[in-house]
């Protein structure tokens, strides 16, 4: 019988979440690009217009979910790529916690920014 050749960990679910977030991001990233480059041109962006969009609860929650899924998908992708390169042991643990910390900073900063537009506290 052939040897198991895979970088997936047995019983892991990160691969599944990578694909679930991918399915969501395909739609929302295309929407984001289309809205901010074709419907509204990027050079016409103003704080007032961004605020008007973000004051809608539907848009605000979609953008926060977009931020969280994009961060997970991107950072998990980086971790997978480094795992593929053969990262193991202590360096792997250091990378893991660094990426988790970077993700938290990114999500918190992104939510603060969204709140600034929506007129909510930026804590």
């Amino acid at each position, binding site marked *: *019988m*052939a*040897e*198991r*050749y895979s970088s997936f960990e047995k019983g892991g679910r990160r691969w599944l979440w990578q*694909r679930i977030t*991918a*399915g969501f*991001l*395909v739609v929302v*990233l*295309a929407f984001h*690009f289309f809205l901010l*480059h*074709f419907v509204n*041109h*990027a*050079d016409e*962006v*103003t*704080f*007032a217009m*961004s605020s008007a969009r973000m004051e809608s609860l539907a848009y605000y929650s979609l953008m926060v979910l977009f*931020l969280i899924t*994009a*961060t997970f998908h*991107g*950072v998990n*992708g*980086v971790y997978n*790529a480094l795992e*593929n*390169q053969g990262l193991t042991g202590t360096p792997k643990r250091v990378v893991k916690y660094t990426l988790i910390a*970077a993700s938290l900073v*990114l999500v918190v*900063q*992104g939510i*603060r*920014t969204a709140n*600034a*537009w929506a*007129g909510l506290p*930026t804590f």
Partner: protein
Amino acid sequence: MSQSYDRGLVEDFGRWREFSAGMWAWVFHKFTGWVLVGYLFTHIAVLSTAISAAGQSSEVIAANNDVYTTVIVTLESLLVVRILEVGLLAVAVFHILNGCRLLLVDLGVGLDSQDKSFYASLILTGAIVVASVPTFLAGVF
């Protein structure tokens, strides 16, 4: 019975002449992924100027003189930024199309035409990017 496929060390780029369509798809997906995650952090950093702008007076915001609007308008006035945005579009469109292809492969759809769907992703990316150039460069000259 499960089969294994030893792809060899793709990370050894000296082997690039031997790469098949699947190897190139893998390399391009990794490369575009690294670019996109790098951009995500940069994007949030730039947009964070909105936090300072929110503290400015309503007159300044209404006149579009706040720090966020000024930063975005200044960046968008630079040709190099517009060209980088076209590059970002190329990277994002390829990652999306090739990602859809990977999702289909995971579901066992189109396994016999993986190379053809990779070439289709490349051609479609090229077509979408070329068609978008006028929109992305509008008003910069």
